[in-house]
């Protein structure tokens, strides 16, 4: 009896996947650094640099994890990141007193986009791929058409978010760590988190258990949009001003989905978590840094990246019993 209970501890086998993935990524990074003689990359500041590569993609990917867990998907994040970065720099115009209004306005925009996405998916019954592809296209188009009128730059004080730090640790990393912990706490320890897993695992079962599945899906989309907004604000701080293409050029939509799935979250929903996603982001960051140290040609890098995405997902997908589409 007791053995049965210990054997079905939920999500216990998940942790090793993320730890394994993170260990492999760091191992790859260290081996490359040692073999190319770039030992400066192994100093504390080098390692912090590696982690800082994770921030932009990490923030989006945490949000993406929420929607994928609930059985949906969000392709509009790339366009939303661009919109937030452009809006933030336009509202601030280099004026530090406008920092707070700009942040509030940006997060308000994200809230609205998240609500629209969620409403289309949960209440409209529209396939999430199409619904969020559509809203992403709408945002991208409006942004590109009006960019001429939306120029500006963020305040110098705002750039502290990307370049400043506390005791040598960049604020952006503190932000990523804090938000990751908060997300993990919400998923593992709160009722909302339990409902997300329930709805993603079996929507009909969740509905029969009295969960308002539409509300849970809607909330997950709002979370994803807010995280995309945080990523957009970080990018605006790092680049000083946003352009309508920073989200699309970073392929944040597809890459955030890729790292989430690499981290062991199932596309159908109901299984996975933030730790795996962060390990996936660390893998991408280590690969990027490693390829740079090796001096691999940018195009070849892309070829390898594509192959690694497939291989990394295949490692745990290959054991799937049923069919996937």
């Amino acid at each position, binding site marked *: 009896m007791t053995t049965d209970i210990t054997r079905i501890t939920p999500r216990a086998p998940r942790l090793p996947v993320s730890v394994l993935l993170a260990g492999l990524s760091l191992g790859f990074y260290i081996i490359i650094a040692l073999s190319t003689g770039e030992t400066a990359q192994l100093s504390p500041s080098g390692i912090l640099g590696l982690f800082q590569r994770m921030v932009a993609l990490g923030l989006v990917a945490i949000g993406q994890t929420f929607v994928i867990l609930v059985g949906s998907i969000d392709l509009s994040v790339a366009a939303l990141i661009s919109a937030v970065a452009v809006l933030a720099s336009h509202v601030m115009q280099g004026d530090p007193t406008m920092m707070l209004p700009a942040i509030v306005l940006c997060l308000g925009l994200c809230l609205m986009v998240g609500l629209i996405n969620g409403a289309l998916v949960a209440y*409209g019954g529209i396939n999430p791929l199409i619904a969020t592809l*559509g809203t992403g296209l*709408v945002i991208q188009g409006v942004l590109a058409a009006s960019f001429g009128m939306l120029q500006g730059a963020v305040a110098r004080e705002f750039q502290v978010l990307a370049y400043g730090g506390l005791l040598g640790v960049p604020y952006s990393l503190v932000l990523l760590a804090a938000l990751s912990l908060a997300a993990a706490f919400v998923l593992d320890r709160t009722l909302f988190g339990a409902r997300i897993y329930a709805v993603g695992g079996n929507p009909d079962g969740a509905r029969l258990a009295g969960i308002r599945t539409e509300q849970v899906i809607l909330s997950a989309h709002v979370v994803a949009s807010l995280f995309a907004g945080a990523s957009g604000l970080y990018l605006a701080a790092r680049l000083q001003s946003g352009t309508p293409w920073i989200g699309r050029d970073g392929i944040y939509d597809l890459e955030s989905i890729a790292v989430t799935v690499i981290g062991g979250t199932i596309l159908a929903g109901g299984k996975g978590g933030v730790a795996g996603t962060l390990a996936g982001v660390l893998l991408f960051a280590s690969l990027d840094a490693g390829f740079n140290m090796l001096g691999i040609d940018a195009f070849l890098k892309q070829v390898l990246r594509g192959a690694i995405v497939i291989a990394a*997902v*295949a490692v745990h997908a290959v054991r799937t019993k049923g069919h996937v589409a």
Partner: protein
Amino acid sequence: MTTAPQASALPRRPARIALNAGLVIFVVLYAAIAFIQPNYLEPGLFMNFLRRAAPLVILACGQLYVILTGGFDLSMGAVATLVVLAASILINGDPETTWAVIGALYVMGIAVGLVNGLVVAFLKVPSIIATLGAMLSVNGLALAWSGGAARGDLPENFRNLGRLVLRDVPFVGTLPLAVIVLLGFVAIAWWGLNGTVYGKRALVVGDNPRAAELAGTPVAATRILAFVVSAVSAVTAGILLGGFSGVSVNAGEGLELQAIAACVIGGAQLLGGRGSVWSAVFGALSLFALFTLLNLLGLPQALRDSIQGAILIAAVGATVWRGRRRA
């Protein structure tokens, strides 16, 4: 006794609805084009419209095969880019080699399709991730091969496939070669889905892979073949694109999403089980008519994306709404 007529009426119903959705949108949009620019009603301009829409229609037909079996193919645009760049590098202005190179391009395309299919069917990687990986790899390969810029040259006989217009054809006046390719491809795609067992298998696999397997359908082979058809369509579209817009490193950018959008606008159901070649054809024609209309209205290029997005949501929303009302 009473169930017999119902049974014969049921299978036809989804097909008719799928046809209506795409066709109606296309006719409305084309009527709007003709209202602004009446000479679009002349056969010559209509043929020219079809010629420019040909790559998208062909891509949509290929994508439809994958969508019917329940997947997505995000690698099409990258394959089309690879085809355009590879053709110009391999042929390099020598018309003698054109046909051999076209053969080689199809081999490349089929290889990409096979890899996609094998990864999805046997490694169980969801197609959206598998073909995303293929998209990154193929795009990187194309750019690495060409050094990141268009080089080489396409000879006249290659470009004619997309560009040549036959004059003095009875009934229609002018007939672009690309339209003949288009009609041929659509006919083969239609035959594949309606004239062979494969068409039934694709629908069954998309609808319920587990049930299909229990009924003896070769699920893996059906899936793999769908990805191969999709890649072949991407090669064909790439050849036409190289013909009329020349060589560029972003020749195929974004085409994969347009092809998916076209199928969905035409009434094909994502995640499989429903749709016909007509949903792909008329969905793609609708989308292209929309682009043409927005150009004629003089809207900024960028707003094209916005309106495409809104139409996409509206088209799927309408399908969902109709479905709910019937239920």
